[in-house]
């Protein structure tokens, strides 16, 4: 995957470039807004990681210009501004996701992976499958190894979110945002309890376990 990183903080940029390269990405870097816009418009990137506060042209301006010219490359905003209206502003400008500094690299990585996946799988899916676990999105049914599993609506959405990102790490904040649709900072790991309830339903009586905890990052569902 090719990633363009537009970030003026040298140290942050070095760290991200190093960490992203380590997970197998090809990273281009621009240190100011104008250069970033030129690179983004000219190059063929899979994901843009754009800092909101940049010298020259700010992040919102870059993304607005790109979107206005028909460029649909997924954009992940990085920002030290963390309030709800900042996020809304970022998403309105055409950003696809918004990550508040400081963040764990695993959080960034999970979100970048999710954005990559979104670019590929645009066709509406009606069935999701991971190993012998199947989800019918139209009938709202879940079956594992031929046995129907009863899920609460929220558990269904939780499993759906994990299965849509099968093989990728989904962080706790991503789950809160996508399944519960609230951007907030829980003081305790509320998600963990929901995961363990879900796990009891889809993994307890089956083998092998599909829903895995990725330490320090989040959760992942995958075959084997």
């Amino acid at each position, binding site marked *: 995957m090719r990633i363009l990183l537009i970030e003026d903080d040298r140290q*942050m940029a070095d760290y991200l470039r190093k960490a992203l390269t380590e997970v197998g990405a090809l990273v281009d870097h621009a240190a100011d807004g104008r250069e970033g816009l030129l690179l983004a418009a000219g190059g063929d990137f899979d994901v843009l990681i754009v800092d909101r506060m940049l010298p020259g042209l700010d992040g919102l301006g870059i993304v607005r210009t790109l979107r206005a010219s028909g460029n649909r490359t997924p954009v992940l905003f990085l920002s*030290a501004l963390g309030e709800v*209206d900042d996020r809304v502003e970022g998403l309105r400008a055409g950003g696809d996701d918004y990550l508040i500094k*400081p963040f*764990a690299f695993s959080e960034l990585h999970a979100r970048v992976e999710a954005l990559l996946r979104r670019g590929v799988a645009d066709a509406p899916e009606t069935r999701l499958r991971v190993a012998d676990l199947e989800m019918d999105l139209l009938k709202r049914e879940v079956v594992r190894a031929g046995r129907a599993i009863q899920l609460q609506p929220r558990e269904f959405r939780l499993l759906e979110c994990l299965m849509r990102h099968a093989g990728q790490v989904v962080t706790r904040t991503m789950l809160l945002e996508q399944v519960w649709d*609230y951007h907030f*900072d829980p003081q*305790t790991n*509320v998600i963990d309890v*929901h995961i363990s309830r879900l796990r009891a339903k889809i993994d307890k009586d089956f083998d092998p376990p599909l829903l895995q905890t990725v330490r320090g990052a989040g959760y992942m569902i995958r075959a084997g």
Partner: protein
Amino acid sequence: MTAPAHPAGAWTGLRARAVGILRSSTFRFALLYVLLIGVSVVILLGFIYWSTAGYMDRQTAATIQAEIQGLAEQYRRRGLSGLTSLISERVARDPAGASVYLLVDEDLDPIVGNLDRWPTEFPDADGWIGFRLRARGPDRNDEHEARAQVFRLRGGLRLLVGRDVRDLEATRALIQDALAWGLAITAALALLGSWLMSASLVRRLESINQISREIMEGDLSRRIPLSGSGDDFDQLAVSLNRMLERIEALMAGVRQVSDNIAHDMRTPLTRLRNKLELLGAELPATGAARTLAEETVADAEEMLATFNALLRIARLESGSRRAAFAPLDLAALAEDLVELYEPVAAERGQHLRLSAAGPVCVVGDRDLLFQALANLVDNAIKYSPPGGELRLSVGSDGRRARVLVADRGPGIPVDLRDKVFRRFFRADDSRSTPGSGLGLSLVQAVAQLHRARIELTDNHPGLRVTLWLVPCQHQ
């Protein structure tokens, strides 16, 4: 807030305004002024009355004295017959006149005059007799007030000369009436004037009060409007506005400093955390060094989280972030919250129950309200013993929307209830419970942003936190 639409509300508002005016110091001052004016007017009118009535009395007395002297002179020159003929002549000349004459012998038997009999009343110290007089002229049945002087003649004769003072009394009553009305009208005008004056002062003070309240709620940009007349109130407003500008500038300075600290501290802290993470990844996956690195990353994250929470509270307290405000259903929000936290409570053997009668509309920031309520529910779960029943309830009484979080924990002693909202405050017995001490500060900041009031009460046992919000229709 707009004016209440229903009549009861309008009446209450009117009554509150009237009470406000009555209780204002201006009105009290004006009342005192009315009292002073009243006393002055009474003294002034009393003097007018006294001098007018006194003048009339003296006039009457002088007339009677002159007549007595005239008659006495006549008696001395022409004897009794001259006197009686003069009296008869005078009586005959003006039968319905105001003058009263009576000449009697030593047995008080009338000799001549227009009075039937000698009055029984005794004279006062100055020799004046006041008595009732059968009216002469057309209104024959009336009795009039009369005043007379008695003059003793030689030979035991007595001469009474007086005047019917009915006209005098009528004039006196007229003056009394006029004075009483004058006093009443003065008092009424003074009261009305002071009411109007107080109302206008109260209105101007109330506008200053209103602005002050808005400023206390966090809107530091508000200023007191000037009337343009350059009067004392305008001068006060100018001074207050200057003070507010100064405060705002200082606050902006503090915020700038805290933002700078945030920027200057968060960035290196983040780098530290990131480098530790990279370092950890280099270490063997199963070694003690790896665990240590991961723990250190977690510590750094905790520091960052505290820092972020502080900054977030500071930003909320600056009270300007209402861009994401929209109407929302508090009951639905509470339902989501219970749905999210119920398993956490269940894991501790607690039961989290929601009671909501129906949708409750408030205008607010959905995520912030959720965050605030999540902090409250989180605390409730943390401090309640296993098996405790936790309650989240949403309701509205029309004027106020209410969210209540009740737990079965140790509660908060009355004397600590104000302190728990301070940053980093932790009750002594909760030091062992994990938490930053910023949870309730954030709740308060969110409440303040929403012009909501927080109330801590006893749940017998436990704590009951109520958030009073402004419902949609009152926004």
